[in-house]
């Protein structure tokens, strides 16, 4: 139990920034460049951490609460979700609701911190982020319902248990593929990746997530960046477990399989970002409604 907890946290804290490095490297290779070193995101975090805080006089404690909550939430959420074949250290009936709404809490504080600055850009970004997340929520819940239907429990450990391997081979395989696609879209939206958002843009008017953190600097920005990396790893843990439900029977093998899956997701994101343009902003809600419908369809298939 305690060992599992430490392994979980160690994996998360050590490997999350690497995923960002892999995405950047993939994009650089597609663009014909060498690109930044794989470990650049670690260097960036160290550099930011050494800097001082800068706070605008118009802001309050909420401004700092945003990054702190943004860092703590993925850590808590990580304890609820199995990393590949490694079971979640904390598990209880209905923890999937907590898992989903922990991220809601972090979003609430990020948006509040953005509004706290009083900047017109940040307000705009907060509106966009909240709107898109609202639309992404049904997809996540319906997908989890599909998983709940296929298992006989309501904790993430049971939902993402060893029965998935047989479920893939049964009739439920179609539903599982559908929710895999839906959850991947949600992963891209939640982590502000192309085609929904462009994490590299400097154009404040087109940003969604990035614009909300424009006024943060130094350690606060480091917390935000680290929190974002953790969030991506936690959310893609869901995908990795769904796509690679195998168990090796040896904990090191399980860790290896899990990390390979995470790297695979990062490369896939990099490939998508290198081969696609961003969607127009009004198209994003349409896509999210589409994924909601797909996940409802997946649910109908398993309820049949």
């Amino acid at each position, binding site marked *: 139990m305690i060992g599992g907890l430490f392994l979980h946290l160690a994996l998360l804290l050590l490997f999350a920034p690497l995923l960002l490095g892999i995405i950047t490297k993939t994009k650089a290779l597609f663009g014909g460049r060498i690109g930044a070193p794989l470990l650049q995101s670690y260097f960036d975090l160290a550099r930011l951490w050494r800097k001082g805080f800068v706070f605008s006089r118009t802001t309050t404690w909420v401004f700092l609460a945003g990054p702190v909550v943004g860092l703590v939430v993925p850590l808590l959420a990580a304890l609820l979700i199995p990393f590949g074949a490694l079971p979640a250290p904390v598990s209880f009936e209905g923890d999937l609701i907590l898992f989903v709404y922990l991220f809601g809490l972090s979003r609430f504080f990020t948006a509040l911190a953005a509004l706290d600055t009083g900047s017109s850009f940040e307000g*705009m970004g907060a509106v966009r982020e909240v709107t898109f997340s609202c639309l992404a929520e049904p997809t996540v819940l319906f997908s989890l319902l599909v998983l709940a239907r296929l298992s006989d429990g309501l904790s993430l450990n049971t939902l993402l248990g060893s029965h998935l391997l047989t479920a893939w081979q049964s009739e439920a395989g179609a539903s599982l593929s559908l929710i895999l696609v839906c959850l991947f879209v949600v992963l891209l939206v939640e982590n502000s990746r192309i*085609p929904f958002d*462009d994490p590299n843009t400097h*154009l404040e008017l087109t940003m969604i997530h990035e614009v909300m953190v424009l006024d943060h600097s130094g350690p606060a920005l480091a917390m935000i960046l680290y929190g974002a990396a953790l969030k991506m790893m936690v959310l893609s843990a869901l995908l990795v477990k769904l796509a690679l439900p195998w168990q090796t029977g040896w904990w090191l093998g399980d860790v290896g399989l899990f990390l390979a899956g995470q790297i695979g997701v990062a490369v896939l994101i990099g490939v998508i970002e290198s081969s696609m*343009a961003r*969607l*127009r902003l009004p198209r994003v809600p349409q896509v999210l409604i589409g994924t909601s419908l797909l996940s409802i369809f997946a649910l109908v298939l398993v309820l049949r």
Partner: protein
Amino acid sequence: MNRSKLIRFTHGACISLKELPCLDFTEFRESLLEEIAGDGRVASFFAMPADDGFDLYAILAHDWREEFALLHCRVGDVYPALTPDCPQLHLFEREIAEQYGVLPEGHPWLKPVRFHNSWVDAADIWRRDPQQHPIPGDMDFYRVEGAGVHEVAVGPVHAGVIEPGHFRFQCHGEEVLSLEISLGFQHRGLEPQLIGGPHPASIHQMEAAAGDTTIGHTTAYSQVLESLAGVEVASRAYSVRAIALELERLANHIGDIGAMAGDVGYLPTASFCGRLRGDYLNLTAELCGSRFGRGLVRPGGVAFDLDLPLQEKLLQRLAVLEPETRGAVELCFDSPSVLARFEGTGRLSTDDAETLGLVGVAARACGLMRDARLHHPVAEREFDTPVIDTDGDVFARGNVRRQEIYASHDLIRDLIKRLPEGEDQRSLGPLAADSLALSVCEGWRGEVVHVGITDGAGKLARYKIVDPSFHNWSGLAMVLRGQQISDFPLCNKSFNLSYCGFDL
């Protein structure tokens, strides 16, 4: 109407001011509106102080007749504004009001243009303190009020490394109701510095009038002096200038397409075009040692010859670059996700473009055939493959650039093949006294118009520069109406206007 009082002339002519009729204002106004109604457009409109009041000069271009019309009248401190009847004059009239304190009465949008003190000791019509330099952007912005309406102010300092300009959006949610653009942050006072010239520094100031249009501005400037001096530029120098102008167009158009791809997050074209732009800039560097063409064009000719080994080198490099460029550009225009962003975004109707007096790429993307290379060549016409698109959206502006890139390659090859032998520099004698000369050069962004007027001693008494951006910023403000605010950077990039070319 009394047409005999208009002077009609072609590009390269030098007009004696003594023979120039001075119309009374009513005649001036009626002739101008009649010319505009008869397919004319404003190429330049400026004032010059006279003994009793101010001389107004209007230069109207008739593209398909390949000629210009010149109107001249004298006004006092106040005159009835022409803008209500001819909207393309609105910035020109504001400019005159700021420079000389001449009030265009009834101007619907009378705000400062570049935020500088009046050039003459006239009372400032905005009652600003003449002892202090005005603060750029200090003006009353248009405001929309109501539930759900919010204001977004962007700039003058931007997130990217670009020029300074202030943009004020009135939005309802994500929709832009109105955009007002306030520039002038880079005003250097180029025009007054040229008075009494040409000075030794003038050519260098022209090279920096708009740093990305060095060849365009220096060519226009040189042509004005050549017309005033009555010297015809050697045909070899003329061709070398044309080649340099196309190289400048290539580098900038490719940079623009890459930047547009970057704005929609399409990395492959953004990366490739960034590299290719550098390669084209290096071709200009081969020619004259400067990637931006500084030091190449000089009044009377060109300072660097395009000799045989260099011709070979350019042709070889172009042969390598052209397929690479086509690959990078076509990749972007073949990509459905990119087209979904480009098509239908930032649309401007042909009528609006004509009313606002747009020029260059932006005008051609709206279906207006305005290309000085075609209509107003100073010597023989080498160019006969103009490009237009009719949709007026971001795609059209990108597409015009794409087709012009391909046309420029052909044009450069053709120019090198037919490069005439002979001298490349002729000395200029003294400039004709009391004369006016106009020069037009199709820079990559659009037509660059320079007008020079000399005094009795043959020195420049007034020099007027019109960068294409001066016409086109209004077009950008116009296309934003009803657009998503998140599409502003893309629309802006598709115009890619110059801030310093406007600010002068």
